[in-house]
């Protein structure tokens, strides 16, 4: 028995798929090179072609043959490239939409952040501008029980605005507040409440009062919250004159 006899012996088993997987692969490698075996296989396939019909037919459930027709023809109508590309295209479009949405949201966030940053920059630029343009820079020490802070005034006459920096003093006690006053010829004019955070200097930008004559100084007082009058009544903590 030579090597080729094995193929001859197993031709029918190959058709029946009774060979083991490795044997089947061996046979498939052999067939393209052996015309005799190919012809023999064709003959056996033809002779045994009806063998599956030993099995009893099974009536299809109602509508199944119609389902097959529709499925096969629908498959035909949509060729392979469409069947593959269409879902890919839909997926790509969805990804694009989602991506654009994310980019759009990200862009909106960036724009918002940029706007805030720009506003802060403008404010810093304005602050620096006042300080740079200040014709008078005043400074005084504020001393109290266990603390020593101070107050700076950068007076910019060109824009009639002052930059006021208060630092190193404790937060106002309950029921009281720090108040900044302009000293004018007709008396003190209320500037603004100074909200103090002991960890950071309080920085205010104040526009000079227009209808009370020239401003020649400023004062920082501690006022009771119940004081709603336009004149200071509390203790003066700092006093500066131009």
């Amino acid at each position: 028995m030579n090597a080729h006899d094995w193929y001859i012996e197993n031709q029918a088993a190959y058709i029946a798929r009774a060979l083991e997987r490795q044997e089947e692969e061996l046979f498939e490698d052999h067939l393209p090179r052996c015309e005799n075996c190919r012809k023999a296989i064709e003959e056996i396939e033809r002779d045994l072609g009806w063998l599956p019909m030993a099995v009893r037919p099974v009536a299809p459930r109602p509508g199944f043959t119609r389902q097959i027709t529709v499925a096969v023809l629908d498959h035909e109508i949509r060729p392979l490239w469409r069947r593959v590309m269409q879902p890919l295209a839909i997926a790509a479009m969805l990804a694009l939409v989602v991506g654009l949405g994310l980019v759009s949201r990200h862009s909106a966030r960036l724009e918002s952040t940029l706007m805030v940053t720009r506003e802060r920059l403008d404010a810093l630029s304005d602050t620096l501008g006042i300080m740079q343009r200040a014709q008078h820079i005043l400074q005084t020490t504020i001393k109290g029980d266990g603390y020593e802070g101070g107050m700076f005034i950068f007076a910019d006459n060109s824009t009639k605005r002052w930059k006021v920096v208060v630092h190193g003093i404790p937060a106002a006690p309950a029921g009281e507040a720090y108040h900044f006053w302009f000293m004018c010829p007709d008396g003190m004019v209320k500037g603004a409440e100074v909200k103090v955070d002991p960890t950071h200097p309080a920085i205010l930008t104040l526009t000079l009062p227009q209808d009370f004559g020239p401003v020649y100084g400023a004062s920082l007082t501690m006022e009771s919250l119940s004081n709603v009058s336009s004149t200071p009544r509390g203790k003066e903590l700092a006093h500066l004159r131009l």
Partner: protein
Amino acid sequence: MLAVSQPTTDRGRNATRRFLSVERESSIRKRLIARDERALVELIDLATPWLLGVTQSMLSDPAEAEEVVMESFHVAWNRIEISPDAEGGLMPWLLRVTRNRAIDRLRSQRRHVVKTRRAEIYSDIGDAITPPEEPNEAGQPGWHVHEKVQAAMKELPPEQQKAIYLAFYRGLTHSEIAEELQIPLGTVKTRLRLAFGRLRGTLATLKEWIV
């Protein structure tokens, strides 16, 4: 020539005898190549019960059996050119495509255990592929082929019938059959070789599957 007088495939309908000659089968093949959808409908109508019979006997899952049949018609429609041009070759080719696809499914790892277990359950070949005839099935197109194949099978010695049954209708390999029947591998090969030889001689004369 085949005259399709009325559909006969759906259960409950009164099966009418139809005639499919070699010429008619050749005509269906040519029209399939020409993308004639009516030829596809005709083939589906004629072949589905037999293909379902093959797939349901091999696969335990009716839904999976239907899937395999559907795949086979996809092949028939899209790759009809590769079917043999020989006389009476279309139906055997379609049966072969269907059976091979069913075997491919069986041989996936997840099916292996089920396949072997079912082989044990249906080890009585007589019950499995020789069911009691129902009177109206005599009108099923191709029924006479079924009868001839059955007759050819019955002419085989019982041990060869059993080997053929396990190989051809259950999709077992030589070694699996040997294990199933508890006989030497060489004996399995010999039984199958002898059985296939005898069946070839008997079945080779079948040309027209519906006459």
